[in-house]
């Protein structure tokens, strides 16, 4: 496959955009998508201090890289969770430190055990009945909110990509979790005193594109999944959505972005949907949504004109 822009060999084929790009043009294209999301959803303005939640993975390190390339004053926060398997947390922290050193970027580390006395797995063990991921999410949200506010940052930016958001939307839709559906958004405002504003600048990009960006850009990220995320429901939903994407390119993108659009326009489960005005078809008399011919009669209109045995009038 050739690059759509220059004809050089492509490094990625993005079927949902009907776009293949070489390394150079792909590295140009990704930040434009991030900038577009930042502007469309009014995430933050140039010059505002952004705190990036970095895990050492491809999404968060790439987000940090892109924001710095776009000229935003972006600093990082790494939370060492104390996951011992494969020295996961310490290796992840090394990836963050390495990235920060290479880019001359400021960051801070919060070590959960040093700060609160126990690692995440230890807390999860103590709180039997709560999953490790649930405990982890709770602790991370608390710390990130606190550091964002105390550090005087305008926003906290997280590396959620479109696949992450589509999987959550799929899960919430399966359960008709209307509360979550109402709140799932690219921007979570500081709606209460003490609550930091949170943004997700990668929501226009597929997970595949973020992995490709990290590889092409030479970002050294933690390749292994968190040991506790294996078998997670979200991963299963991602696989299901990928199967859909394989036969229908762009399905994930339209599922998520059109959900946001529909909700923003008040079309999501609005009562107005049940109040459609109906008219009688000018030919057959059956109910139809638009004045004039109904869809059935329009279907046969040309045929009948050709046969010349029925006159139709709009």
């Amino acid at each position: 496959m050739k690059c759509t822009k220059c004809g050089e060999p492509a490094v990625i084929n993005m079927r949902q955009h009907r776009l293949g790009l070489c390394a150079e043009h792909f590295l140009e294209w990704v930040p434009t998508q991030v900038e577009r999301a930042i502007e469309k959803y009014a995430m933050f303005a140039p010059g505002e201090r952004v705190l990036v939640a970095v895990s050492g993975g491809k999404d968060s390190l790439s987000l940090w890289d892109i924001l710095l390339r776009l000229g935003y004053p972006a600093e990082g926060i790494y939370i060492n969770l104390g996951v011992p398997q494969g020295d996961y947390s310490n290796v992840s922290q090394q990836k963050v430190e390495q990235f920060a050193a290479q880019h001359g970027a400021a960051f801070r580390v919060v070590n959960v055990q040093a700060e609160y006395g126990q690692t995440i797995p230890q807390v999860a063990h103590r709180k039997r009945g709560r999953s490790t991921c649930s405990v982890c999410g709770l602790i991370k949200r608390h710390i990130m909110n606190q550091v964002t506010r105390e550090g005087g940052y305008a926003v906290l930016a997280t590396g959620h990509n479109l696949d992450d958001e589509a999987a959550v939307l799929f899960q919430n839709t399966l359960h008709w979790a209307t509360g979550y559906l109402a709140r799932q958004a690219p921007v979570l405002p500081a709606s209460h005193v003490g609550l930091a504003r949170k943004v997700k600048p990668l929501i226009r990009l597929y997970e595949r594109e973020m992995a490709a960006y990290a590889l092409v850009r030479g970002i050294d990220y933690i390749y292994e999944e968190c040991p506790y995320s294996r078998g997670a429901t979200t991963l299963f939903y991602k696989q299901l959505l990928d199967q859909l994407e394989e036969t229908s390119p762009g399905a994930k993108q339209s599922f998520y972005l059109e959900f946001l659009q529909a909700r923003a326009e008040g079309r999501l489960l609005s009562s107005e949907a049940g109040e459609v005005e109906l008219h009688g078809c000018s030919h057959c008399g059956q109910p139809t949504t638009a004045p004039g011919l109904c869809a059935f009669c329009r279907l046969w209109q040309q045929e009948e004109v050709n046969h010349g045995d029925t006159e139709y009038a709009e």
Partner: protein
Amino acid sequence: MKIIYRDKTWEMPGKITIRDAIKKVGLHPTAVLALRDGKLVTDDVVVGPDETIKLIAVVSGG
């Protein structure tokens, strides 16, 4: 060609597209990216018997 994915390696005779090779080893083409000589390539690329392709999982990190 030789295909490497995590700690597994497969050998395949003759010329084949990366996409077909990915399917033959039981992986999903959208779930991995392919590197040839350390460079990212699209999966329509035809690979010869003496070449090595390293596959990278799209989902990773925590």
